[in-house]
């Protein structure tokens, strides 16, 4: 459609007929009343440079606060002089995200490669021989949020896959166990699971063994989301007619081979939108780690507004964190749409 045609169609849709014109005008006026104060706060009356005093003299947002506390919001209590390591880890994690998201790289060596990159990020954050040791209790901010997201996705997915297959197994005991696990976890809020990991797990461990809090939180998140992965994957498996497996077996595939080469690719493709949605949910759920005292991006933003030199700029802190989360989540959901289209094309044989 030509640009001219588009404009004409838009015009006809919005202002064609008096009813449409009235509705559109009313909505535009409403939107202006809703947006005007936000624009005024965020842009027109905002303070971009200076200190807290300069901000106090203006009514608008204090973006100077975000500028001054940017490094804390992004990296939290990570030692100031070592921030380059946190930034490098962040770059590594973003690279890994891109790799994981590109179908061209989906092959057998992606799993070991992701493990290497994840381990690399952990080494960068934690330290290597000759570098300052940074305990995981000091990790924080955006690298931590991404690390937890990617790690709990990559741990939770295989567990979820196993649970889904177990729940569809012909053997009653594994089937019951998997179903019981899935239903138990899905009936429990994440925050309760995190509290359990934080408070009860140390009591259950033998004395003298201290399992790192971050590791405990990560295990809790991976086990929690494994149950959701399992149900999504099971939906994909059930959507596939049994004839697919039967045909593959008849062609001489082993059971595993049929699963790997015939069933799973089709099943996973069918539930890809749900998987992307869950991945976005995992990223957003990392904010709950604040409840067990871990400084993810959101918790770091809040703590930044507690600095006596910049007291109480919670709106700006939250707005900035929201922007980052929005960029990540919106990117992920657009990616989901793109991926769906691409996979559909692939399944139709048009490469």
């Amino acid at each position: 459609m030509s640009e001219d045609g588009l404009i004409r169609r838009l015009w006809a849709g919005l202002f064609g007929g008096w009813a449409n014109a009235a509705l559109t005008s009313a909505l535009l006026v409403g939107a202006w009343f809703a947006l005007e104060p936000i624009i005024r706060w965020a842009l027109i009356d905002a303070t971009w440079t200076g200190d807290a005093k300069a901000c106090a003299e203006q009514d608008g947002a204090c973006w100077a606060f975000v500028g001054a506390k940017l490094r804390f919001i992004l990296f939290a209590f990570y030692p100031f002089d070592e921030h380059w390591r946190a930034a490098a880890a962040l770059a590594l994690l973003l690279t890994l995200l891109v790799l994981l998201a590109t179908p061209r790289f989906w092959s057998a060596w992606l799993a070991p490669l992701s493990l290497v990159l994840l381990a690399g990020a952990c080494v960068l954050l934690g330290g290597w021989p000759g570098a300052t040791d940074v305990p995981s209790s000091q990790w924080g901010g955006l690298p931590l949020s991404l690390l937890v997201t990617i790690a709990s996705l990559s741990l939770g997915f295989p567990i979820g896959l196993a649970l889904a297959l177990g729940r569809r197994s012909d053997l009653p005991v594994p089937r019951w166990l998997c179903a019981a696990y899935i239903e138990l976890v899905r009936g429990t809020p994440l925050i309760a699971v995190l509290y359990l990991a934080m408070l009860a797990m140390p009591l259950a461990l033998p004395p003298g063994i201290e399992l790192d809090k971050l590791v405990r939180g990560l295990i809790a998140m991976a086990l929690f989301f494994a149950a959701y992965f399992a149900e999504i994957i099971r939906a994909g498996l059930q959507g596939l007619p049994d004839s697919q497996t039967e045909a593959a077996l008849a062609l001489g595939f082993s059971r595993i081979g049929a699963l790997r080469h015939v069933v799973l690719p089709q099943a996973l493709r069918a539930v890809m939108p749900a998987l992307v949605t869950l991945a976005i949910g995992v990223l957003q759920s990392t904010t709950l780690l604040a409840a067990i005292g871990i400084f993810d991006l959101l918790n770091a933003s809040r703590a930044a507004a507690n600095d006596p030199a910049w007291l109480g700029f919670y709106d700006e802190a939250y707005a900035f964190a929201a922007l980052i989360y929005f960029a990540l989540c919106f990117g992920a959901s657009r990616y989901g749409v793109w991926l769906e289209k691409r996979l559909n094309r692939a399944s139709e044989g048009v490469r």
Partner: protein
Amino acid sequence: MVGRGSPTVWTVRGLVATVLLLATALVSSAAKAGPTLDAIHKRGFIKAGVGSQPGFFAPDGAGRWQGFWIDIGRAIAITALGDPEKIEFVSSSPQQRLPALKSGEFDILLSGATQTITRATQQGFHFGPVAFYDGQGLLVPKAAGVSSGKDLDGATVCIQTGTTGEQNIADFFRKNGATFKPLTIEDTGEFLKALEANRCDALTQDGSDLGIKRTQLRNPDDYVLLPERISKEPLAPAVRWGDDRWLELVNWSVYALIQAEEFGITSANVDQFLENPDPSIRRFLGVDASVGTAAGVDPKFAYKIVKTLGNYGEVFDRNVGPETRIGFERGLNRLWTQGGLLYAPPFR
């Protein structure tokens, strides 16, 4: 140790245990440390649970923890390990701080928990010396024309979850034969929003907290902190039961800060005080090492605390005093000689 095995294994185990015991005895003859202190020595640093409140615990421009309770923690680290940096601060929300202390997540809670009889008996926590005397207050909009909490019959009062405040405010209204609607909010930032949005008619929390919160409101002058205090809130460090020696180290670290102020010793003049002939000052600073040695601590621990952090008054003024944005008066937190409640037992 519970276990089974052949007699040889038992002998070997017995031998190893004996050697370990002997080694421990040799390394530190004075150490009759309990499980907490043992864990601290093994780990090499203290783990302290802290909250999130400007002036008491907050990250500074370089992302380092700063604040009143942070300094108390550093003083304890000096006493226990000789180094103010050998302490790690773990953030903990009011709801989960006591369970987390109990489960061993940290060795000491420095988040300004109120000392109460239930916490000290049923729940199994020991409290160190009160480092900050507080009381629960009420913050209300001036427009409401309220001059006392008694005028708040039927009001919606916002409370932060997991604090002793919930019970205090219920008791207060019951005592006055009045009713109120409680609205509990966990997050500190949202607490203020609720008042500004008129979701609540009053905020209740420790007075020191409300003082800070008022300055953060959009129009602080439209709100007033009512003068009455409806509860006593002695805020003290808390530790688990089961390690008396650890508790004593905590106690005397706080007392050292208070005693230094009483002697008039500051971080600036502490070195001159080393020449002071007063025997009690000589004992306090470890010039006369007899008391410190007998107590099984570094005789110089008080000197190091004052040299590094200053005395109680300096710690207070630096973090929350009138010159800071927080702007607290000393009030009850003055020395007993100046009409306050701070009193340190003698160092002898």
